[in-house]
Structures are given as C-alpha cells and as structure tokens.
C-alpha cells in the first residue's frame, strides 16, 4: 500500500464518498486506466502549489516594474519566469488594485480558481454564500472579511465564467520601502490574492 492509503485505518465518521473514491481508484488501477505513478504525480502536483506562489509573483511585481508589466499582460509567462508551472488554466490573468479600483474574484458557476498557481481554493471561496453574494453585494462580503474600500474606490467583480483564472495584484502597503522581496512576500495573504482583503502592512515578529 502506498503512503496515501494510511488514512484507511481510521474510517469512522468520514463521508460515504471516501470509500467510493478509493473504490474508483482501486478499480481504475486494476483496469490499467490509470497507473500508481500517474495518481501520485497528480497528488504531488497539487501539494506543490500554494498561495506562496502568488505571494512571490506579487512581491516581485512590487519591486520590479518590468516584471509587473509582464505579470499584468501575460500571467503565465510571469509565472514561468519564477519557475512555476502554469500549464493547466487556459489563461491566467492578473488584475491590479489601484488607489481608484479594487478587484474581487469569484466563480459563481463552480469555484474556478488559479489552482495551477495557488493550489486549492479556501473553503469560503467554494461556499454557496460567497458564490451567490460576491457578484451582488461585493462590499458587504468584503466587510465580513474586515475590509471596506472607501466609496470613491470602484469595486470591480470578476466572475470567472470561462477558461480564464484570475488573481489580484494587491497594492503594496505604505511604509514597506525597506523590506526585502522575501519579507514583502510574507505580507501577501491568500485572501488578498482573491480581493477579499488586503496585504498585511508589517512583517510579523516571532
């Protein structure tokens, strides 16, 4: 048994679909539809992806204006430049927050998200409540996240209805001129990459 089966012993109150997907896996492997390495590669693919990738793209864009231009015009090229492997989404488009405009990303139809860069979306992003309300009352949604852009800032919602996956390039917090690129990346939260919040303004101590 490979490592990822170790959870099998616990069973218990987990979903009935847990057994079904394991059954599907076993049958697909037995019939040669998939191989163990293919399944393992797919697991590794997702595990390698996380919001840290997004934070790196943002931090680089904050310090390097030429990179920022590439990020905003050809997201996949920018991601490739930093060694990320963005092949899965048909398009990866990064939208910029400015003092006049704040972007919020949603997929009302199913929860599309730039998984090839950022990994799995947060649970709230997939919720019916977010998918229903983000298009209709984005400011109310953002207030729940503790963030309220002023009335003179336009709020722009992007519903990812087709083959484009969107990520937000948040504004660089003021007073961060002395931070290194690595420190800047630690300010970029996952929520800020969706537009549900803004980056931290200072590096956490300890």
């Amino acid at each position, binding site marked *: 048994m490979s490592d*990822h*089966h*170790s*959870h*099998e*012993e*616990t*069973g*218990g109150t*987990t*979903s*009935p*679909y*847990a*057994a*079904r*997907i*394991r*059954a*599907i*896996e*076993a*049958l*697909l492997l037995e*019939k040669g*539809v*998939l191989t163990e390495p*293919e*399944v*393992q*590669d*797919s*697991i590794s*693919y*997702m595990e390698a992806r996380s919001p840290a990738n997004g934070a790196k793209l943002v931090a680089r864009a904050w310090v390097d204006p030429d990179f920022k231009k590439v990020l905003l015009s050809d997201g996949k090229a920018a991601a490739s430049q930093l060694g990320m492997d963005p092949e899965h989404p048909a398009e990866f488009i990064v939208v910029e927050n400015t003092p006049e405009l704040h972007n919020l990303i*949603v997929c*009302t*139809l*199913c*929860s599309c998200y730039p998984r090839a860069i950022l990994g*799995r979306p*947060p*649970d*709230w992003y*997939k*919720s*019916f*409540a*977010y*998918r*229903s*309300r*983000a*298009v*209709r009352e984005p400011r109310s*949604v953002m207030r*729940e*996240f503790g963030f309220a852009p002023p009335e003179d800032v336009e709020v722009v919602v992007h*519903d990812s209805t087709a083959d484009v996956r969107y990520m937000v390039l948040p504004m660089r917090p003021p007073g961060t001129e002395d931070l290194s690129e690595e420190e800047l990346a630690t300010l970029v939260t996952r929520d800020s990459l969706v537009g549900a919040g803004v980056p931290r303004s200072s590096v956490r101590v300890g």
Partner: protein
Amino acid sequence: MGGSPGGPIDRGQHEVEDWERLADAINGALGAKGLQSTDELRRAIESLENYRDLSYYERWVAATENLLVEKGVLSSDEIDERAAEIEQRWDGP
C-alpha cells in the same frame, strides 16, 4: 447561483482529508490523460440531483463516478461492491 440570497460566509477552513486529496488527484490524472475534461466534470457536477446536499469534494466524487459509468469505464455495481468491501475493512473485525 450568482445573485441568489446567501447567508454569512463561514470563513473556517477544514483540513483537507486524504480522500479529498485523492478525489483531486484522480480527476487531475484523468484530465492529464485526456480521459475527462474540466467541462465534462463541471457538467456532471451541475447535473447532480443532490447538488445542494453534498460537500465540494463529495460532488466531485459523485460526478466522476457518473462520468466513468457514462463512458463505460466502470459500472456502478462494481464501485458499490468495492466501496462496501473498503468500508467493511475500515469498520474492523
């Protein structure tokens, strides 16, 4: 879905369970081999009658099963049988 009434957003995050990781992986592997497209998966999820009763990954598993059965790759019976065996093993002697 978009624009429908919705309640407060639960910002809690559950630990991804192994079976959910596996659901992701099976779909990724099937997609990588051209055996299933994102659009097919979306369509199969949308067609689920009990869509609103299932969690995100439960929908993925149910939809994947329906697609594999639709394409004649697996049968519901053999999935039922194997899933029952697996659950028996989990429940212990």
